[in-house]
């Protein structure tokens, strides 16, 4: 009970299968009140599916099991109405492709007012005033004049601002931002990130930031979960993970990012590709691409263990703390040949 009151959302052993193919293999994840958690991993690793499943937004052919608790209240397996009560009002979500996430045939003002009347009972002029305030808050210039425009009359970045305004309409306790900047230009990306950071500071809502951009995650989040092939492989504070990534996959993600400071170095890609969820390798899913894999990794799967400093890690042979970069580089290059 104590634990339930401290966390806003708790996911326990959340599993998802599409047409019998398991894509999520038991996710345990807590989100505290007001906390910002990042979910990182390559495309198809299950970051988005985790939260779509938690909100019951997956299509009917997906089978979801496990527990999703909001304030200690179980949602998973409940009726559609239980999810409908939570969506938008308690947990709001914004998506990767803002332009196609807004209804193309409805005026944007109406789309925002719809959320306001649904969650806050606002109607008519009051709803419009509040919608204009939200549009102003998310930085849509000249909102009054553009209230009756359609989504295609806005740029991608502005559409994401509109999505955020709509998400804020329900005054949610948690905003799930599913790769909110992936489809946007770099300069617009930075603006949207700043907006998310600023809004969280102003409203105190918790944020789950789903991204494959580690830099963006470090700006927005306090805690990071790294996912690979439907599992969390490493979890810790931003400081922990960024100074000392221990899982070889996490390490690989960092090595694949170009650095503007420091000497010019070759980027080190992670060899191979994400495994097909239909045919996951034996043992650790990352083992075929891992530069530190040993025999044990090929037969057994490491479980997610919590260490004394709070970091969670699923690896038999983690990268040594402050381990020498050179060793790893050479080994990776051997593998690439």
């Amino acid at each position: 009970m104590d634990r339930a009151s401290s966390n806003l959302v708790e996911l326990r052993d959340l599993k998802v299968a599409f047409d019998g193919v398991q894509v999520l293999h038991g996710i345990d994840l807590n989100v505290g009140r007001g906390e910002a958690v990042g979910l990182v991993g390559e495309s198809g690793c299950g970051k988005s599916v985790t939260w779509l499943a938690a909100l019951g937004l997956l299509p009917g052919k997906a089978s979801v099991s496990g527990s999703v608790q909001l304030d200690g209240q179980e949602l998973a397996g409940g009726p559609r109405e239980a999810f409908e009560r939570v969506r938008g009002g308690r947990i709001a979500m914004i998506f990767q492709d803002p332009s196609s996430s807004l209804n193309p045939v409805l005026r944007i003002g109406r789309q925002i007012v719809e959320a306001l009347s649904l969650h806050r009972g606002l109607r008519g002029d009051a709803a419009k005033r509040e919608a204009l305030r939200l549009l102003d808050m998310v930085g849509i210039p000249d909102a009054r004049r553009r209230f009756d425009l359609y989504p295609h009359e806005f740029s991608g970045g502005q559409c994401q601002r509109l999505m955020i305004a709509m998400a804020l309409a329900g005054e949610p306790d948690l905003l799930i931002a599913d790769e909110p900047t992936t489809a946007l230009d770099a300069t617009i990306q930075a603006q949207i990130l700043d907006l998310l950071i600023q809004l969280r500071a102003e409203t105190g809502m918790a944020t789950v930031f789903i991204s494959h951009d580690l830099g963006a995650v470090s700006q927005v989040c306090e805690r990071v979960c790294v996912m690979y092939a439907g599992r969390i492989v490493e979890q810790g504070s931003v400081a922990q993970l960024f100074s000392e990534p221990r899982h070889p996959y996490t390490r690989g993600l960092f090595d694949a990012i170009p650095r503007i400071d420091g000497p010019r170095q070759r980027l080190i890609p992670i060899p191979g590709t994400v495994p097909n969820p239909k045919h996951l390798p034996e043992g650790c899913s990352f083992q075929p691409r891992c530069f530190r894999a040993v025999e044990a990794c090929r037969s057994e799967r490491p479980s997610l263990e919590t260490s004394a400093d709070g970091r969670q890690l699923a690896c038999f042979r983690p990268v040594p703390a402050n381990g020498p970069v050179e060793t790893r580089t050479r080994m990776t290059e051997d593998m690439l040949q």
Partner: protein
Amino acid sequence: MIRFIAVRLLRAMITIFAVVTFAFVVLRMSGDPAQVMLGPDVPQEAVDAFRRSWGLDQPLWIQYVAYIKSIFTGDFGVSMRDKASALDLVLQRLPATLQLTLPALLLKLVFGIPAGVYAALHRQSFADRGVILLAVLGFTIPSFVMGLLLVLIFAVILGVLPSGGQDTWMHGILPTVTMSIGGIGILARFSRSAMIEVMGQPYIRTASAKGLKWGDVVWNHALPNAAVPIVTIVGFMVGSLIAGAVVVESIFSWPGIGRLLIVSVSNRDLAVVQCILLIIAAAMVVSNLVVDLLYGWLDPRLRSNAAH
């Protein structure tokens, strides 16, 4: 917007002109009205006199120019058979045809669209499979087979409905149902695929993520988007209100435009056939124009494309 309509109107005129020309040429090349009207054993002088009196002895292009001129003055010619204005003959038959096609259109809309939408929202269910099966049956069985089948069941075996004629409203039931079944199937299929397409779009997920009730997501967010493809099909159905009953009117001896067309073609009653084809083409072209305008109203993205 005015430019948009002007372009469409011009295109519509060209289409009608092409239809009229085609009908004119084909009709004159496919048989001699004099032979058909007068019979095989009349003397050559009678045939020549008939030709002269209808202007058929003139070169084709002179006949054509005269015909086009008269159309522009509102004169659609005179029936060789009844010696009455072709337009009047056709318009006399119009109410009978609309008595069948309008209720049939209503049935198509009332049953086709909801069935398709329901199937889309309950995909892979028993109901979905049932709708697909019935829809395919509905639009693959030709209307002359369907009509005879219904006559067999309801007129011959059960004896509850008349098999032909236009005496009471009961006489209209079988032809109307026969005519609507194919359209119901087509609309059900189109509505289903349009809704399936729309329900997979990101904005539907957004609407759900917002907390909207399922029914509101479907009604307020999905249906307006699925309307464009559905309106296209309905437009065709509206366009064929006049011409759509040719086969069914013949099966059920219904004195509408369709039957007039068949009789006039076999008699080579040139003016009447041309008049009917012109009206059919005009109806189709006008409904297409209305559909184009509706697109802009239904989908603001198309509206701004048209303006530019």
